[in-house]
């Protein structure tokens, strides 16, 4: 027998063949022959070895190395590395999966653990098509008990005791409904089941009918017996074929067993149930319309009273209950009304099924005890919002319900509590919406739905919904006008009051609730023609540009990178942004959060591309602008807001002087952001461009110290305050006067001023934002041995950027979550430690995050010698006198005059940047700088009776349009970084920037949403 030194086993089972193991096999044969190894290595095609999911599989003996996901292209590497050189190819090797012990139990997964199953008790456990399996889990025992041991009145009493309320949405007490029908005279009565589930996003009824149809039948038998009905209908829409199939099967099986039909279980009671297929009209979910539909008439509602309990189907007393209501009934009869009433809240008993959909990780069907907070359903059971986005709203109750904001997350699921929010429990649809949802568009969607589904019988609904829809469409298209919101509200109340049936009466709810909670979004559409969520596409060219506070033409400069025209790209950026080099490094990228590419794989690396252009383009020469206006303007503070305004005003022909207290211009860009993120020459060159226009920048001059505010006010016609927020908030705990306590802003400023700042060896930083990370990473670079960030919430809640957090951790910064300092401990006047308290997350706050709450007795002491509070900062406003006319808000910012964007309450005095907004970002400061310049110019021109400013024609830069034919999933290009060892000891820039090739590759990922096709 021939002896081989190695055997290559290629799996040829069905599974691996399906994943192209054939090609791998052929490639192995080819490669072995090519390398002349045919006499040394045998190639065997094996049968399936079971690891089909990881196929194609290859095993190489004698070592028994197991390779998975082998592609034909990998074969040459395997042969040359493994067979020839004896080095197994690590990247293709099988990795031991996690051990069995780590598998969570169902109850440990919040999705299942926090649910309580009554209506859904058989889900996933029984075969819905086998009646015996239902019987084996106590099926029909409730009906048996009701028919043989109980009188109809006793059943109704039990139902009343249970507190069960209609699960279709109305919430009418089920026992009462049955009692009315029972008391109605007549020998022919009907029991009806409403399975006409039509709310967008709701699928509770379908799921119950598919998984457990007998539970509904059993509930109907009990109800039918209680009211004295011998015939029943299930009204189910035809678009639920599987539910209808299983229902019909269940009815046939129950009939065969004598559980339906004559003399059920020998009790003398008879009931026949029919399935009636609806055509899918939403209005047929309304009870009188549903009955009209069963009668063979057009599905339209009629006025009530008479109520169906006295005159229902064919004018006979009838009870109509929803699928979920019936599914609860057998359990109540079997276990008793008291048992059921022990679950839930005062007014809402038992459990409720919700169809959880939308922007939530676990889409599905959940059943929870009544009273469970809405937030628990979304965040614990639903697993929160995908892709780390923020929660915005939850839509409850479908088209009849409403959209509630983050402040409603603590509201318990209780009929009355939800109504107070302006929504309804409804049948249990719960659509989660994240920050990328436009509330006006959502209202428009629901209004369109109601308008289309309106039966047309009554005028308020037929005409009113149409008019409301027209207004909403106008607003979404950018043609909204003043008064539209009020008109919508007026129409809404008229329709609510005068429509014939529930559909019309509740149709305005989505509009009213969105106006109630998201009015500012309507206003943004109407007055600013902006869609903050970047959804209403008629309002913008591309979502990224729309999301940018200064509307940078992002697709244009990305296209110019692709076309290798970065000098033009630079000019495009400079049109709106005087600091592209800065923003390319530190912009929070509102643009990227709306980037459509992010829906495919990852958003574009917009800032990094911007940086590539700013770093590599040839800068055009800047010439001074002639002063043509006689008014003199003073800008206090040379940060991004002040400098942007100075630039714009200089371009409009004004003489501008900027006063800056610190030795260099740049503001927070220079004195808060550390050098390793923001090299100083980049800031300086962009500042120089502004100075080159003729703007005079006086550094080292503090207003109030070197020159009085009054003197400036006297000398200049206009004063723009762009003083920033350079004062750290204190923690407001004992011991903050000790030596070794530095506010983050003061600490970073001292370092950035080049002062000899001594940090101790053990540093604690308090906070979770970018400043906290900046302070921590700076402390590492100054030689601190041990740096710990104390943050009171969880990592996912940190406002700091993820890549910054990761970089800090790489550099050795430790982060303690759910911890808050309560006292700084001193020794000989110096910091010696900090006493902390562990926190736990409790109810939701207004931002939609869980509020941290101290755990009593959890205090511990961290031994430290330096502590840096980095929780927030505010402006220095103590120089402002009463007679200056300037007002300071409670939040410490400078107040704006009513309806103004930058004008203060003092004549001729304007404000921009952090001083007006509180701590924000560079790009927001730039936006406000632009705004201030425009408002100042308008103010001056209006005072002189001059016409408004007209911008000169801009240089036209032609933007190429080139996109890939096919889009393949590619994550964004990685940013090369400085070696870790060097990072920890120097302030050299950590991120090294893209090279030409990487930038081109990244630019090609852009899908060009700006294109008009």
């Amino acid at each position, binding site marked *: 027998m021939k002896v081989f030194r190695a055997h290559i086993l290629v799996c040829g089972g069905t599974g691996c063949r399906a994943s192209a193991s054939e090609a791998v096999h052929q490639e192995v044969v080819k490669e072995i022959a090519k390398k002349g190894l045919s006499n040394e290595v045998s190639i065997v095609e094996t049968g399936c070895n079971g690891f089909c999911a990881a*196929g194609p599989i290859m095993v190489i003996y004698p070592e028994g190395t197991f390779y998975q996901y082998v592609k034909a292209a990998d074969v040459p590497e395997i042969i040359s590395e493994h067979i020839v050189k004896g080095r197994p190819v690590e990247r293709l090797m099988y990795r031991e999966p996690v051990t069995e012990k780590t598998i969570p139990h169902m109850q440990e997964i919040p999705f299942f653990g926090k649910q*309580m199953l009554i209506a859904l008790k058989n889900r996933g456990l029984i075969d819905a098509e086998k009646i015996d399996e239902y019987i084996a889990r106590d099926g029909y025992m409730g009906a048996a008990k009701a028919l043989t041991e109980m009188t109809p009145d006793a059943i109704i009493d039990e139902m009343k005791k249970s507190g069960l309320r209609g699960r279709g949405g109305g919430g009418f007490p089920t026992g009462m409904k049955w009692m009315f029908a029972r008391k109605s005279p007549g020998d022919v009565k009907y029991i009806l089941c409403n399975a006409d589930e039509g709310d967008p996003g709701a699928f509770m009824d379908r*799921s119950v009918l598919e998984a*457990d149809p007998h539970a509904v039948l059993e509930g109907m038998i009990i109800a039918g017996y209680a009211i004295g009905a011998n015939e029943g209908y299930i009204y189910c829409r035809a678009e639920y074929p599987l539910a209808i199939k299983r229902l019909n099967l269940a009815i046939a099986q129950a009939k065969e067993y004598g559980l339906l039909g004559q003399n059920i279980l020998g009790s003398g009671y008879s009931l026949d149930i029919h399935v009636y297929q609806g055509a899918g009209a939403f209005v047929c979910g309304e009870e009188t319309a549903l009955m009209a539909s069963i009668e063979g008439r057009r599905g339209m509602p009629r006025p009530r009273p008479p109520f169906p309990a006295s005159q229902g189907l064919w004018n006979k007393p009838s009870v109509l209950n929803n699928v979920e209501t019936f599914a609860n009934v057998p359990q109540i009869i079997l276990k008793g009304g008291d048992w059921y009433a022990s679950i839930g809240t005062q007014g809402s008993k038992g459990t409720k099924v919700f169809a959880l959909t939308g922007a939530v990780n676990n889409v599905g069907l959940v059943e929870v005890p009544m009273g469970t907070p809405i937030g628990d359903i979304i965040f614990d059971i639903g697993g929160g919002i995908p892709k780390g986005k923020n929660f915005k709203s939850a839509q409850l109750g479908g088209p009849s319900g409403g959209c509630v904001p983050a402040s409603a997350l603590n509201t318990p699921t209780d009929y009355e509590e939800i109504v107070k929010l302006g929504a309804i429990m409804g049948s249990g649809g719960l659509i989660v919406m994240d920050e990328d949802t436009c509330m006006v568009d959502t209202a428009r969607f629901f209004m369109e739905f109601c308008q289309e589904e309106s039966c047309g019988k009554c005028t308020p609904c037929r005409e009113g919904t149409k008019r409301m829809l027209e207004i909403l469409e106008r607003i979404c298209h950018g043609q909204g006008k003043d008064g539209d919101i009020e008109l919508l509200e007026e129409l809404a109340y008229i329709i609510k009051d005068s429509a014939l049936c529930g559909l019309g009466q509740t149709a305005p709810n989505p509009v009213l609730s969105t106006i109630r909670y998201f009015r500012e979004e309507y206003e943004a559409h109407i007055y600013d023609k902006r869609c903050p969520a970047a959804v209403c596409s008629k309002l913008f060219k591309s979502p990224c540009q729309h999301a940018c506070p200064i509307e940078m033409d992002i697709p244009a400069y990305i296209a110019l990178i692709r076309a290798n025209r970065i000098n033009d790209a630079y000019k495009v950026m400079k049109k709106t942004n005087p600091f592209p080099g800065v923003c390319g490094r530190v912009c929070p990228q509102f643009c990227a959060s709306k980037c459509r590419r992010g829906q495919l794989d990852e958003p574009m690396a917009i800032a990094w591309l911007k940086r590539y252009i700013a770093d590599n383009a040839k800068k055009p020469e800047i010439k001074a602008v002639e002063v043509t206006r006689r008014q003199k303007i003073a800008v206090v503070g040379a940060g991004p807001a002040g400098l942007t305004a100075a630039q714009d005003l200089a371009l409009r022909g004004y003489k501008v002087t900027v006063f800056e207290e610190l030795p260099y211009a740049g503001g927070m860009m220079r004195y808060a952001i550390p050098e390793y993120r923001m090299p100083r020459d980049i800031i300086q060159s962009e500042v120089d461009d502004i100075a080159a226009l003729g703007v005079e920048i006086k550094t080292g001059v503090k207003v109030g110290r070197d020159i009085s505010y009054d003197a400036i006010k006297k000398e200049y016609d206009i004063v723009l305050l762009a003083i920033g927020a350079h004062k750290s908030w204190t923690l407001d705990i004992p011991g903050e006067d000790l030596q070794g306590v530095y506010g983050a802003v003061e600490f970073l400023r001292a370092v950035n001023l080049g002062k000899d700042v001594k940090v101790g060896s053990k540093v604690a930083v308090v906070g979770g934002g970018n400043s906290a990370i900046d302070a921590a990473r700076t402390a590492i670079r100054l030689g601190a041995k041990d740096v710990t960030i104390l943050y009171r919430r969880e990592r996912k809640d940190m406002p700091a950027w993820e890549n910054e957090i990761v970089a800090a951790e790489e550099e050795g910064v430790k982060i303690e979550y759910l911890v808050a300092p309560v006292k700084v401990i001193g020794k000989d006047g110096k910091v010696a430690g900090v006493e902390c308290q562990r926190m736990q997350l409790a109810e939701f706050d207004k931002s939609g995050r869980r509020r941290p709450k101290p755990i009593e007795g959890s205090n511990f002491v961290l031994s430290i010698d330096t502590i840096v509070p980095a929780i927030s900062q505010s402006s220095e406003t103590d120089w402002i006198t009463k007679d200056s006319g300037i007002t300071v808000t409670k939040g410490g910012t400078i107040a704006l005059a009513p309806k103004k964007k930058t004008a203060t309450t003092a004549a001729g005095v304007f404000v921009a940047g952090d001083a007006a907004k509180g701590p924000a970002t560079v790009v927001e400061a730039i936006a406000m700088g632009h705004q201030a310049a425009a408002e100042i110019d308008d103010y001056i021109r209006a005072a002189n009776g001059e016409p408004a400013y007209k911008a000169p024609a801009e240089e036209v830069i032609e933007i190429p349009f080139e996109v890939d034919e096919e889009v393949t999933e590619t994550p964004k290009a990685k940013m090369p970084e400085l070696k870790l060892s060097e990072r920890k000891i120097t302030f050299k820039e950590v991120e090294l920037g893209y090279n030409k090739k990487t930038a081109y590759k990244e630019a090609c990922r852009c899908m060009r949403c700006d294109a008009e096709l």
Partner: protein
Amino acid sequence: MAKLTIDDLKRIKEKVQKEDLFRAGAKRIKVTVHMGTCGIASGAKEILDTVMEEMSENNVNDVIVTTSGCIGICSREPLVTIEEQGKEPIVYEYLTKNKMRQIFKQHIMGGKIQPEFIMARGKEQDGR
């Protein structure tokens, strides 16, 4: 068939419980493919077919295959529950044909559960 009485109902219940081929020990493993609309839409039918194919290809006859409805977490379909006598049920998520083949060979035939594809073990609890 004759009309049922309450005693018949109880008898059926006991009979089903006793006759449960799986609990009675005649079958070794019970495979439940969850086939609500959500499961079917995500390919549960293909998963069920794969199980049947594997059974006939490998002459396996000590396995019970059954279907059931949605277990609630629709976004992780297709889901399959595998129950072995005396052991906690294992729920596998996001199944594909190949994953199902691997689970069949490795877990059902080989007794090695496949943690990479598992959502959870155990059963849900119903109301108090």
